[in-house]
Structure formats: C-alpha cells, structure tokens
C-alpha cells in the first residue's frame, strides 16, 4: 500500500513586497504578487521527497478565491498527483477556526496517512490552522517539523524545532505535521510539468461536497472578528543623501566616528 499524503497550501500576498503610502500611511496593495506560502511550499517539498522515496501519492488542497488556482497548478508542476480547490462564497470571511472547519470537512472525504501543513502563513502568521485541523480530525500533531524519517511500516520519527534546540518524537500514521519552510528547499517546477499543469484537472469543491456543519463556516462561523484595522504612524525621517558611492562611504565613516563606533 502506498502512503497517501495531503498537503494543505495557501495563496498569500508576498508581504515583503507590500509598502506603505508615505503620505497617507495606507497600504499599497496594487501590484503585490501572490505566491504559494513559503512554509506550505516546504511542506509540499517534504511530501514530494516521500513520493520520490516511497512512491507516495500526493494530493494538494487549498481554500480560496478562483485565483488560488495558480498555486495548485504550481504544485502540479512540482510533482503533485491531485489538486483540490475549495471555493465557495460560503467560505468567505473565515477566521482560522472557520477555515479549519472547512478544510477538515474536505479532508473527511479523503484518504490519508499523513497530512502536511505549513507552520504558518506569511499574511497572518497565526500558525493555527494545522493544529486545529488535527484536533477536528482527531489526529495526533507534530508542529515545527524540521525533518522526518519513515520506518516503511507506520511510524514517523520526527525532529522538531524548539527555542533551545530540537526534540525527537515518534508518532504513528495517520497524523498531521506542520513544516518549516527552512526544512526543505523547494524544488523548481520542471518544464514538462509547467506545460502539463495547465491542462490537468483541478477539482472544484463547494460546500455541498464536504462534510461539515454549515454554521461553522465563513464569517458566520468565525468566533473572532476584526473590530478595526489601522496602520502604525511613522516617525519623522532624518537626512537622506543621494551621492556617489565614495562620498557615501565618507558620510557613513564620519557618522560612525561621531557615534564613537570607530
């Protein structure tokens, strides 16, 4: 029996590209690229390594608007076998728990030995969805995964990151792990994969396709709500020089001397 793996992935704005309008202090969202969340990509890479080694079957699943199709195609091009896109207006406005309810509802329709999520998404940084899915599906969880070994029967030996170092833990299938992007450098899409990815089927699943209490979905099913959102004020700027490189070095050296660093 081949191992069945499901990887939960999310499309996120590349938050390192977001800037503030210096005058109004508001977010400039235009032109910010959307990417596959880095930790999720690390998770997908882990799944694909297990595919290379043990011929595992890899399904990717995402919840999001139609444009999230892009990251599923990217996952195909990297080597995923099946892609499922949860999309429905009833999912909209979900907080982490409502998101986890939807994903868990979909996962209940699927077979798996291992569910992989990224540790956290760079747009929210909450690191909640993985453990919440594990709870809703009554699976053991291992978070902050750095590396994993499989005994080829049913036990994983996992190294997980801690503040002081690491921990080695063991867990049997089925289980959920959340993965750090630094754990696995993601492979590139291969050219044939990119070409084929466009014609492959991405399964579209709405609420009717999943097994979940509809009251627990979307904005209505979200225990937390945003009360207000605001940007932080900016402190006043110092002097900015546009000079040639040599003059720039002089200015820096003088300043470091003034500050007794040199």
């Amino acid at each position, binding site marked *: 029996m081949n191992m069945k793996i499901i990887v939960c992935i999310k499309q996120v*704005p590349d*938050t*390192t590209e*977001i*800037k503030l309008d*210096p005058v109004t202090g508001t*977010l400039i969202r235009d032109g910010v690229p959307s990417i596959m969340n*880095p930790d999720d990509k690390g998770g997908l890479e882990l799944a694909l390594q297990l595919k290379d080694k043990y011929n595992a079957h890899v399904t990717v699943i995402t919840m999001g608007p139609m444009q999230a199709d892009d990251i599923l195609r990217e996952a195909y091009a990297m080597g995923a076998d099946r892609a499922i896109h949860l999309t429905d207006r009833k999912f909209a406005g979900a907080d*982490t*728990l409502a998101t*986890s309810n939807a994903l868990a509802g979909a996962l209940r329709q699927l077979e798996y030995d291992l569910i992989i999520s990224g540790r956290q998404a760079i*747009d929210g*940084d*909450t*690191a*909640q969805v993985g*453990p*919440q899915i*594990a709870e809703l599906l009554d699976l*053991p*969880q291992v*978070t902050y995964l750095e590396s994993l070994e499989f005994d080829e029967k049913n036990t994983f030996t996992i190294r*997980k*990151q*801690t*503040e*002081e*170092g*690491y*921990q*080695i*833990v063991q867990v*049997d299938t089925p*289980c959920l792990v959340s993965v750090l992007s*630094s754990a696995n450098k993601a492979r590139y899409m291969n050219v044939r994969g990119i070409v084929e990815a466009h014609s492959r089927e991405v399964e579209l699943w709405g609420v009717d396709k999943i097994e979940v209490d509809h009251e627990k979905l979307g904005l209505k099913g*979200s*225990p*937390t*709500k945003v*009360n*207000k*959102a*605001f*940007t*932080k004020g*900016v402190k006043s*700027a*110092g002097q*900015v*020089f*546009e000079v040639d*490189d040599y003059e*720039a*070095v002089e*200015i*820096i*050296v003088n300043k470091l001397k003034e*500050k007794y*660093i*040199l």
Partner: protein
Amino acid sequence: MDISNYKDVYVFVEQREGVIQNIALELLGKARDLANALDEKVVAICPGHTIANKAKGLFAYGADRVLCIDDAELGVYTTEPYTQAIAQIVNSYKPGILMIGATTIGRDLGPRLSARLNTGLTADCTQLEIGEDRHLMMTRPAFGGNLMATIVCKEHRPQMSTVRPGVMKPGIKDESRNGEVEMVSIDFDRTKFRVKVIETVKEKKNLVDITEANVLISGGRGIGSEEGFELLQQLAKLLGAEVSASRAAVDSGLSTHERQVGQTGKTVRPDVYIAAGISGAIQHLAGMEESEFIIAINKDKSAPIFQIADLGIVGDAKKIIALLTEKLKKE
C-alpha cells in the same frame, strides 16, 4: 453559549524541566491589569510534574489563585496531555479570558485547545485591553506586520490570545501577596497520548544574541547573495558588531532565524543599526525602530526604511558596504 457564566483572567503557566518560564510572569503582569479593569481575578494554570512548590511563587507576580496539575505525563510538554488538562479546567472553571505564551509550546497548544473548545484564538497579540463593553480587545500585526488589527471574540468563551515573549512586561514582584496552591486532578484519556518524546536536545547554536549587540549590521534582499553576507561579516568584525537580517534574507537562506529582526524575528534596540539593502516592510521596522541611531542604505529612494532612518544613503548597498569595508581595512 451563555457568556455571562464565564469570568476571570486565566494564564497558562509554561514550565520546562521544572523551571517556570519568564513568559508566564509577563502574561501575569498583563493579566493583572486586565483583571483590575474587569474587577475580576487572575488565575494561573500550572501543569507539570512536582511543580507545586515553584507554582507558589506565582502569587507574588499577580495571581489570585494558582491551579496546579501534577502528573508524570506533564513533565515534558506534549500536545494531548496538556490539551486535555487545560480543556477540563476551562470546562469546569469557565474562564472569561485565557492567555498563552506564543512560544513553540504555546503555539502548539493554543490552536489545538481553541478547536477543542470551539472558541476564537488571536495569535501574537501586541496589545490587550478591555473594551467599553467588557470584551477583550486583542491587537495584533497582520499582513506581515504592515497592518495592525484589533480582534474581538464576542460570542465565544474563553477569549483566547497568545502573546510573544518580550512583548509584555512582567509585573513587579510583590512578596506580600500569598495564597495556597490548589491541586487539580484531571481525568486523562491516556489512549489519546499518541506522540512519544524520544529525546530533547539543547543546542548551543554559537550563542548569537542580536538583542545584546551595540551595533548591528543588518542585511536584506538588496545585499543579494551569500557573498554579500560574507561582506557584512567582515564589516561587522571591523566594527565589533553582529550581523542580523531581514525576513526576506532569512527566507532565502542567506541568514538564520536567530539573526532575524522583525515581527516574526527579534526586537532589537542597538546604539547603531545599519540596514543594508533592506526596504523596510513594517514587519521589519517593528523589530528595529527603537534603535538609537539608524543608518539605511538602499537603492530605492522611496523605500520606507528612509522614513525612519536618521541617516539615509541612496545607493547600491552591496557596493557601498564593500567600499566601506575596504576603507576600514586600510585604516
């Protein structure tokens, strides 16, 4: 759910190897403020093994009650025993608020618990206060720190939040505060304990602590390559500085997480902070804007880093750092 049955501010007290972690004291300090505003009590939940004696010290840091759960399974943290213990306490004591440290333990426990209790959890709060309607107003950075959002959880209890270490100040120790630790026994379902800890390893990772450095030279995407970071290392040596990095640089493997400055990294306040090739996403600024003197080098004149820099240089960071290093070597 009738939320009027839920009251008091509960704090999850994290211990490792029988040592109560600082984060617990920081949370107690904030919990004290919140409880005072609500005219309610602060309750510390302290799971562990033979921890009761140490738990007694929590009164001095602001706890009105200390609930201790002692079990061999709780000595080293694993998800399920802790989740069962806290969930049973929540179900019988009905807290209005539950605070957890955003450590690797708290971020493993918090979401699992919130799903079991079917309530909301707000991660990495930087500000917590009681609103006019007595709900907890939980403010956190969102969108990579570019935006602050205030979150409420009005219809579910407890209102759960995690707070990162170092964000809140511990309360002042008051030895006159005292009390009796209450031992609570939990009815564990041990068949659900499915993760086995084989080994816990403490690594001395070269002991870099960028928060202690007087001078930091921080590299971002604009510094480019490993070669660029090598340059920063050379310059750091000449200046007696440490090298730190932006998230972009860490994500692309140029530096390590313990050197990362920003919302998801560390908060630093050195005498001089040199930002080389860092555009200054708010997520980064949040971690360094309190620095005494900020020098920014970036080729994009409109980069937000220049809005907080004391000295800004528009130019190629890699080239300028290389020239600067050359010059200092000669001197």
